[in-house]
């Protein structure tokens, strides 16, 4: 056991400090739900650390202290009902505490808050899930082998490919301090949406729509994520980037993306017409 701890400590010492940031806790800092998960995790970690040290300590002590010695006689104890009931109840109590803590924390993890005052100005919508005032930006996330596609704006679920709404691939651009609701789907196999700093993962299962949300406070931040469910040979390459910009920049980007898509569409349309005219299609 000592060796085991020394080994863990050794690892800590070898590693550069920045690599240590997530040695014991999950990533967080990008969104309130990620922060709440992190603080829930830490409560579990503290309790677990006490149990771990207690149990391993008792084990180590027993093994070292009670090694066979000349003349030593093993105590012929068959059990101790009180003690056994005691530790069963104690284990149960720890779990009761964990249960209570989890359910107390849960709303702050699954319910999105309102956008901040500096966030993008939005109108209310009827689609779930919603922050208390109903104002949020919906982004439809669609997983497919081996890229993520994002469609921006409410109603994206119904017409993700209708061409009206702006979309992007791999890199999602979002306004800062704004509640973003993600409607997650998959078009081929199961994928899993996960940007660690922005909260937990949500599976993208074909035939289902799943939801999550995040609210990133800092413009200029860039968050990395990647597909977390084995989805085929290029699973490792199915990465995601979330770029947080100011609401004004977001609106500008959205317009520019819209125009770029329209320009590309009309180019393709012209090309198609030419090819059709030349009987090459």
């Amino acid at each position, binding site marked *: 056991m000592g060796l*085991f701890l020394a080994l863990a400590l050794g690892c800590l010492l070898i590693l550069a400090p920045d690599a240590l940031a997530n040695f014991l806790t999950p990533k967080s800092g990008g969104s309130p739900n990620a922060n709440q998960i992190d603080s829930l995790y830490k409560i579990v970690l503290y309790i677990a650390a006490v149990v771990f040290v207690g149990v391993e300590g008792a084990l180590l002590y027993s093994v070292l202290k009670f090694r066979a010695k*000349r003349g030593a006689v093993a105590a012929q104890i068959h059990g101790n009902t009180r003690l056994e009931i005691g530790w069963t109840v104690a284990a149960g109590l720890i779990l009761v505490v964990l249960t209570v803590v989890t359910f107390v924390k849960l709303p702050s993890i699954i319910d999105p808050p309102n956008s901040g005052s500096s966030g993008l100005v939005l109108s209310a919508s009827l689609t779930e899930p919603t922050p208390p005032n109903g104002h949020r930006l919906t982004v439809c996330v669609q997983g497919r082998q081996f890229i993520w596609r994002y469609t921006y704006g409410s109603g994206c679920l119904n017409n993700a490919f209708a061409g009206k709404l702006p979309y992007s691939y791999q890199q999602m651009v979002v306004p800062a301090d704004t509640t973003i609701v993600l409607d997650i789907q998959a078009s081929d196999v199961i994928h899993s949406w996960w940007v660690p700093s922005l909260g937990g*993962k949500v599976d993208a299962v*074909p035939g289902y729509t799943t939801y999550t949300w995040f609210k990133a406070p800092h413009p200029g931040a860039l968050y990395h994520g990647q597909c977390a469910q084995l989805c085929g040979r290029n699973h490792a390459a199915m990465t995601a980037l979330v770029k947080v910009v100011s609401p004004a920049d977001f609106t500008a980007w959205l317009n520019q993306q819209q125009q770029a898509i329209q320009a590309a569409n009309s180019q393709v349309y012209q090309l198609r017409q030419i090819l059709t005219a030349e009987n090459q299609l």
Partner: protein
Amino acid sequence: MSSSDYALRPVPQVISHEVVKPRQTKRWVDWVLTTDHKKIGIMYMVTTFVFFILGGVEALLMRVQLGVPNNTLITSEHYNELLTLHGTTMIFLFVVPVMAGFGNYFVPLMIGARDMAFPRLNAMSFWLLLLGGVVFYITLFYHPPESGWWSYPPLSSKLYSPSGGQDAWIFLIHITGVSSLLGAINFYATIVNMRAPGMSWGRLPLFIWAILVYAILLIIALPVVAAAVTMLLTDRHFGTHFFDPTAHGSPVLWQHLFWFFGHPEVYIMILPGFGIISEVIPVFSRKPIFGYKAIAASTAVIAFLATLVWAHHMFASPVPVVVLGFFMLSSFLIGVPTGVKIFNWIATLWRGSIVTTTALYFAVGFIAVFVLGGITGIFLAVFPVDWQLNNTYFVVAHFHYVLMGGAVFSIFAGIYYWFPKMTGRLLNETLGKLSFWLMFIGFNATFFVQHALGLSGMPRRVYTYPPGVGWSTYNLISTIGSFILGAGILVTIANVARNYRHGKVAGPDPWKGNTLEWFTTSPPPVNNFDSIPRVRSVEPMRDIRRQVERQTGVTQKTGGSERFARV
């Protein structure tokens, strides 16, 4: 009488005789046609160890690939094949059947029976296991499956996994499933009907309790996965759409069916390990097991709860919050009986007179690492936390702590404990302890840092990763550790290979055992016992030894374990 004679004197004097009859057939024909539970047990163990080595090589290949970022040694296709082969092999072809191997050899001996209830069915179980393994591994010559050991559709459907490798995986589940079911029925019938006179349920050795519950869990869980893979097979080839979302099928249905089997499977793998530990620790503490009833009862409670926790594998899947809450609570609950076992084992060591044999080293090492595996299990049961940890290297670390650190360490404890009984020879203790320390250090180096990898955002099942994201150092440590672990396993294999012929003669009871298998010669004759003693407690051998001491007035020494203890 010289002192060495004294140490080697079979004690108590065992009455059992091998019936010597002239060999009519060739030695290998004997093995192929045998219905002797001991020979079948040995065949199980040898076969499963071959698969263990194969699975281990697959693991090392993956670790080599992940040792440095952007590695191109193994392609993503082959990496996916390796992870599927590794997981499937370790679960279906190693841990589950090796426990059946131990069970085969020791259930009849420990309950004082002369064979299993259905010896021929027993032989069939073994040959089906081998067949399942061959059907699966033959895919190496065409196209191994590559959708992981869960084979989630639609990835495992015909459209996304067209190769026959996926079908071979399905047949592996079918064939080894039938093998395990037949074995489970056999264990159940044997334990219920063939116990020695006086061996009531309250006197059943804890390993036998574990095998009994293992059998019941197999009978509950295996039909479900058999049905699920049959549905997958018909989806793939006969136009059904059970799991096809484009035709109103549901991929989530597969997840429920698979994990309804998959989580009991975890306890199927670990409960017999718990049983081995519950045998080894009292023997080498020279103390009765602390809280026999609590340990036996916790085995049954774990089995019951094991059928109610499956959806904690699906916390990121589309399931309602009420389901999340229920499965968090049921997963918490299963921590209680597991904790009870650990406390009881430590209490058994407490105030004992601990004989530090290799078997004890592995048993204590098992507790040490299993505690951490259990604790990280609680992290994963908290579903909001699981949203961060699910499908990352944290989970990989967790289940290797319970299955590699847990089940495999208990298997090694079992090997060092029972090898003298199976072969009549002792393993080398120095090599054994070297093997233990290499495995213990290598294991922790490999898997402890994987918690950190998961927490820093590395998903499992990726064949490579970019540099500069804080994963490289952890991965390198893990890879180095895996080779230390592999070296430790090789030392034990060398130990076994050398000592099954050349080891020191063990005598019938080298450890001062508590249970009936030590009441016969090592190795036992075909009929196991000439006469079966009446059982008066949970430690019949101890009673017999005491009685001999009373009658002869001579303190009974054992056949060899004094050599390892400073007594």
